[in-house]
């Protein structure tokens, strides 16, 4: 087993490398994240060059990738910062220099300054090392849009998303199993048909329709009718005391939307796999033995029926985190989805790449956990 896990983890490494390369180049070709700096008249050209150098935006693309991987603190960039708009008759800081030539001038302060003239403008030359350590040394870079380390930015968003994801996941499991088992026991009853129809519709519904409808009904219309209405923006009300109660009230609608759609799909699955098990021989044997119906359903049948579900749900957990993008957007939930969309819009590549990488790692790990769980739950499965 240990060997199996190790092998699976090793297999994941090339996968992660491929993903990193693809996402990195996709983001880099999407556009210049600091393009708007050129539009702001308050930012001088020197500031712009320094800001771009800080993120290594002007390095050649393959070099940028290397820096992102192993850092750029060993790499020296040569920056040419303009000091005069125009160089009159070829002088720079009072010293005559010819075009293209580099001269070191000693300033009044005693500092030695290398200068040059290019296209009739005077520049001072600055040599500067990067400050990024690279992801292989655990540095995921700084967010361009926020000016803070990526991990810090993500560390703020992740708990919010986990809160939303885990609470909706609990709701999904409870309802999916409850409904699915109930439907399977009463196959073709009115209740069964009714739930089947509803889940068919829910599966076909885009999540934003569910979200917008519930916002419209429970927030907008309830307020209009003078009923107690639910909040729809963010995690806390502005004027609130940030209590747990307030948080729970804010959780209701997003969790409802995330759960509504998934419950529909899962409960159909639970129903199908329960039906398959209930009609099998060993259940008939258990009945013949005189076991109680309750015991048969919940112990004998459910245990076997839940095997395929473990696979399905285990594989879906990371996707739930990503799938919350739309929901978080609608409810302004300050989680990973919102962070991802904002970062995409602002071309904040460091955040985007880290997000995708984390997601991929989560997928790999959950796949592994699922496989292991499968072996634990089903003694027939053995890994070689």
């Amino acid at each position, binding site marked *: 087993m240990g060997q199996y896990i190790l092998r699976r983890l090793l297999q994941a490494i*090339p*996968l992660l490398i*491929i*993903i990193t390369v693809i*996402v990195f180049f*996709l*983001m880099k*070709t*999407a*556009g210049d994240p600091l393009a708007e700096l050129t539009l702001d008249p308050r930012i001088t050209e020197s500031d712009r060059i320094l800001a771009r150098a800080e993120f290594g935006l002007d390095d050649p693309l393959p070099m940028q990738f290397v820096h992102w991987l192993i850092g750029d603190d060993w790499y020296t960039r040569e920056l040419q910062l303009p000091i005069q708009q125009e160089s009159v008759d070829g002088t720079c800081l009072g010293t005559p220099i010819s075009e293209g030539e580099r001269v070191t001038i000693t300033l009044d302060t005693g500092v030695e300054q290398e200068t040059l003239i290019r296209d009739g403008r005077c520049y001072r030359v600055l040599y500067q090392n990067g400050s990024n350590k690279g992801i292989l040394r655990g540095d995921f870079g700084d967010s361009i849009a926020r000016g803070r380390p990526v991990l810090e930015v993500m560390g703020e968003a992740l708990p919010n998303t986990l809160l939303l994801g885990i609470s909706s996941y609990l709701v999904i499991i409870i309802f999916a199993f409850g409904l699915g088992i109930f439907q399977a026991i009463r196959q073709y009853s009115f209740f069964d048909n009714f739930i089947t129809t509803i889940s*068919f*519709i829910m*599966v*076909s*519904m*885009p999540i*934003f*329709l569910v979200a*917008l*409808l519930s*916002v*419209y009904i429970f927030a*907008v219309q309830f307020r209009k009718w003078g009923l107690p209405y639910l909040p729809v923006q963010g995690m806390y009300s*502005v*004027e609130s*005391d*940030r209590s747990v109660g307030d948080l729970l009230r804010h959780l209701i609608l997003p969790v409802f939307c995330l759960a509504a759609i998934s419950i529909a799909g899962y409960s159909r699955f639970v129903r199908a796999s329960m039906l398959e098990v209930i009609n099998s021989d060993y259940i008939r044997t258990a009945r013949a033995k005189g076991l109680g119906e309750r015991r048969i359903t919940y112990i004998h049948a459910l245990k076997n029926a839940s095997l395929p579900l473990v696979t399905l749900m285990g594989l879906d957990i*990371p*996707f739930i985190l*990503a*799938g919350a*993008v*739309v929901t978080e*957007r609608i409810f302004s939930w300050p989680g990973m989805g919102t962070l*991802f*969309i*904002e970062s*995409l*819009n*602002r071309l904040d590549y460091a955040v*985007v790449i880290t*997000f*995708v990488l984390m*997601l*991929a790692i989560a*997928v*790999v790990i959950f796949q592994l956990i699922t496989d292991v769980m499968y072996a634990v739950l089903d003694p027939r499965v053995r890994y070689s």
Partner: protein
Amino acid sequence: MTDVSTTPKGIALLSTETKHTKAESMSRIILRRFFKHRMAVIGTVIMTGIVLFLIGGAFVYPEIEGNTPDPTAPFVAPTLESLYNDAPVLAETEIPSLVSLISYDQALALLDEAVQYQMITERDRDAVLAGTENANRFDLATDDAELLKTLKIFEGLRLIRVQYVGITNPNFASDTFWISLQRFNADNIARLRAQGPDRAAQEFGVTDEIIDARVAYLAEIESLGVNEIMDALDAYAIAESRFEVTQVTLTTEGVFERIAELDPAIVQGLVEKSAQLGLITAEQQQTILNGVESATKYNDQVPADFPIEQMQVLTWVEGLRFYEIWTGNLDRFLAPDKINLDTARTTFPELSDEQIMARSAFRAEFQDTKVHHIITRLNKIAAADAKVEASSSFLARFRHVMGTDQVGRDLFIRMIYGGQISLMIGITSVAISISLGTIVGLIAGYFGGWIGALLMRIVEALLAIPALILLLLLSNSLSRSSSTITLLGRELSTTVIVIVLIIGLLGWMGLSRIVRSLVLSLKEQEFVVAARTLGASDARIIFKHILPNCIAPIVVSATLGVGGAIITEAYLSFLGFGVQEPTATWGNILNRAQGDIARYWWMWLFPGIFITLTVLSINFIGDGLRDALDPRSLR
């Protein structure tokens, strides 16, 4: 291992003489089995309905060009009759009387304070003072110039969006200046401050002094009664925008009384002067004085007490409007004291300095007569009339059955066009992903080896990232620049093609796995072994023997894939990364509603319902096909 005779191809291979009839009866069986499925029938019926709607709707529904924004068209919603009734009253009496309580200097001071407390930028202030387009519709509300200027300040302020919203997509900035200001009530701030010394400053991102100043500002505004003005302006804006009828009523209201008061000599002078300055030809001048044809429509619009001798003046004014004397010529010239000759010379290179100055002087004269206000109103009437005419088919009484969007485009026609695009995206992208998935699955399954292993690794890599995230990434890179192309006689945004490609290129992995595992088991079966023994080439085996046996899962996943692709497109467009305007899809119609889902409920409800219905019917059909094509039940 399954018996040879259980696979349809196997049957055909063993009994070649009955091959034809077998195949025929097989398709019959499939059809019969399909229509025995109740859900599948329902799905087919809904789908047929949607397709008929998308194809036929555009012919039956009045020919309103869905893709051209028509700024004159109003918002339309099927309710709020009361507001509609109130609107003229609001504009003519209530709003001016509310505004008259505040002097122009007071309003100006409020505006400056807003700049000072960093609630609006200086550029915003200048824009407000210049008079926004929205504010100009109050031109006829009052004769008091001071009052009008004050009114325009408030209307401008009402419209200003909060700056620094932080998100690049303007669709997400829905807060207005006033709504955001409401958060600065003293109770709110006190509560925040009780939680910690920096909480308030942190929440609003400004210093405590500015917060205090804003609280005081809000109190000042309340004492002045500005809030009532804002409410009235809001109500007016909603009312005016909601009903086309309102538009006609509002524009005709008061305009004929003004014409009745006009001095015929002045209007005649304007016409003559226009001809002298070369704004119209002598021929056109004659037409105006004789009466342009379009003037006849006012015959049944003028009120009963309209003086009959003024009909001639009305005709002349209509002529001036018809030849765009004001809107097409004069309003581009500044008054003589403001005009900059250098700029004017470059703008109007064909005119001499004297001509420029003459026109500038004429503009001032024209403005003094206030005839241009009347022309603006008549223009609106003309626009409303054009719209009525455009939609005068047998469905005219249901004009705008689904309302319009913020720029006045008819939602029903956009639903039709958008649905065509959405379905087109669904079908073409699935065509791409199905071919890719089948080819990859066949190769990986049949040849195996390192090619198969490599292909399956790629599949795993692509499946390791949630599809929506990958799609957003790709769309973000590829659809940033958008131009238009002409396809099948329709102007489309190039993002349509980008979206089709990326949905197609990222949707094949599931099918390739299914096909691969099928091929793996099929290629060991006797009929394949037999074919190989008979010397059939790889290509023949793959396409003649293996592929036909994979058709069932391919057809099923193609059907379900169309539904998936439509939903995916909707998600992308909803998040602002999908097909870009002006091309409509169900997804980006929805996107426009995001600003205020309570106010624009029809803009998300109708596309949402259509997406759900389409996907639902596709899922039904897919389920039916799955059962009908199930080889186990074909015997």
